[in-house]
């Protein structure tokens, strides 16, 4: 029997497979395809204090082995989440995680404070790295002091597990990771999307309404694995790895590079059952290689 369980500090997960924010709705969008209880956890779409309409269409452009998006945090706001969504996911055996986004520190704090009232909610993921809205958090996530300030402020009001999602669009992700660790983060997740751009040369127009957007998918995976490896060796808190994971082997790369858990994003769009297939693939890998505890492979590189 293979042990797939993992821990992010005190947060226990039955397996290391989570879903990435913005790629899995509120989980319920996928319940026709998978049993949510089978996941390690799932991170729901970016939630802000007030409802947001997001950016104009077109919001997506397919690129070689990847996609650009500029959704811009469209969501119904934290009250909508608490009233209409939370009751339907709160009893999941897997761990629901709310991704918290904002434009100002006060908004992050107010949103986290409100979520702290949900006793069953064990973790939030602080999004200080959205590239798609003006001051959509990436402003905080790109400087050590900005990251430190927002994480410290949320730390004061959020008593349970605090994951901080980091932007790769920085000079040194290691320095940012150290800052948020110092500010009280319980773990870091990385990477958010890479800022990118694509042009329709026939129409001589940018492909996205906002001109630039976030690149995800297999195209970003080598960058993500490198960053996870660097950060995992530089901080003492657990690292959640994500960026282009399509299958169990990809997940294993992140785990061997030092990730205690992984998030699956864009792959959910292509195969809504991919998370379950990754969990089964991790089990099969361990059996094939005589590994009894998956986390024994963590950080072996």
């Amino acid at each position, binding site marked *: 029997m293979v042990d797939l369980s993992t821990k992010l500090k005190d947060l226990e997960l039955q397996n290391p497979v989570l879903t990435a924010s913005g790629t899995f709705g509120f989980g319920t969008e*996928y319940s026709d395809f998978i049993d949510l209880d089978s996941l390690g956890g799932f991170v729901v779409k970016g939630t802000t204090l007030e409802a947001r309409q997001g950016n104009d269409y077109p919001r997506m452009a397919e690129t070689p082995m990847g996609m650009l998006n500029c959704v811009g945090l469209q969501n119904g706001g934290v009250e909508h989440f608490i009233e209409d969504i939370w009751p339907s996911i709160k009893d999941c055996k897997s761990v629901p995680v709310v991704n918290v986004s904002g434009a100002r520190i006060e908004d992050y704090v107010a949103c986290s404070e409100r979520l702290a009232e949900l006793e069953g909610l064990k973790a939030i993921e602080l999004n200080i790295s959205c590239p798609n809205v003006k001051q959509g958090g990436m402003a905080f996530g790109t400087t050590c002091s900005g990251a430190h300030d927002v994480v410290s402020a949320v730390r004061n009001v959020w008593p349970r597990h605090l994951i901080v999602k980091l932007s790769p669009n920085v000079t040194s992700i290691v320095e940012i990771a150290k800052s948020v660790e110092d500010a009280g983060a319980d773990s870091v997740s990385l990477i958010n999307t890479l800022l990118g751009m694509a042009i329709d040369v026939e129409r001589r127009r940018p492909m996205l309404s906002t001109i630039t957007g976030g690149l995800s998918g297999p195209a970003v995976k080598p960058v993500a694995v490198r960053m996870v490896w660097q950060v995992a060796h530089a901080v003492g808190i657990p690292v959640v790895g994500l960026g282009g994971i399509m299958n169990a082997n990809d997940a294993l790369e992140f785990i061997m590079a030092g990730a205690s858990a992984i998030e699956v994003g864009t792959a959910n769009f292509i195969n809504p059952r991919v998370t379950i297939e990754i969990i089964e693939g991790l089990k099969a890998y361990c059996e094939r290689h005589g590994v009894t505890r998956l986390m024994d492979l963590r950080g072996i590189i």
Partner: protein
Amino acid sequence: MILRLERVEHLPSGWLWLILSQADGSLMPMMNPGQFVEVGVDRSEVLLNRPISIYNRTDRTLELLVAPIGRATKALRDYEAGDTLRVIGPLGQGFRSDFAPGSKVLLVGGGVGIAPLYYQACELVKKGVETEVIFGMRTAPDQAIIDRFAEVCDIKVCTDDGSAGFHGLVTAHPDFGKAKDYIQVCGPKPMMKACLKDAVSRGTEGEVSLENMMACGLGACLCCVEKTVKGNVCVCKEGPVFKFDQLTW
């Protein structure tokens, strides 16, 4: 689901007519006209699945009508009977069909937007609805498509170049202006806008089917949004079919 290609028909225009069945022999799930499926074209170099409307559905088969325009749809040309495709669906909200027997419904298709209207025409005729189709194309369409529609209802063809049927736009066709109870449109956006504007000016209600670029098809990624009276909504989940009065066109 994994579907097996029973038949691939390469129509003279270059369009593909695909007839698929369940690889495991099971029944095809129930589908409503106007819904769509996401098709994984694994032999192409594209990452994302492609949303394709339902041309027809029977207990054993799903039919798709595809214009090979982009990389994925062009790659479909290399598939043969016996090959399999990953298919997710049915997805989205289809066309309205709860009309009283004897009511008059006009279906207007532009280009490959004609595809979902065949299944819808069959459904309407079954319900005793007086159904008429106007099919607009740049140039003469494949006879196989016309013949198929003609088996179930009246179909009029319009071409931009006059190579078949009426020479001109669908909105200029004499039958377009005849009194109808409802109109359902699928085609290029400018055509749908023209149809909507014309119908609304005469007080006729109706629906259009949109094809905004999608990533997931499930309402999760929020990429395919259309501005509606309710704000930005996912075309894949709330649509692809929208009532005229839901849009801000």
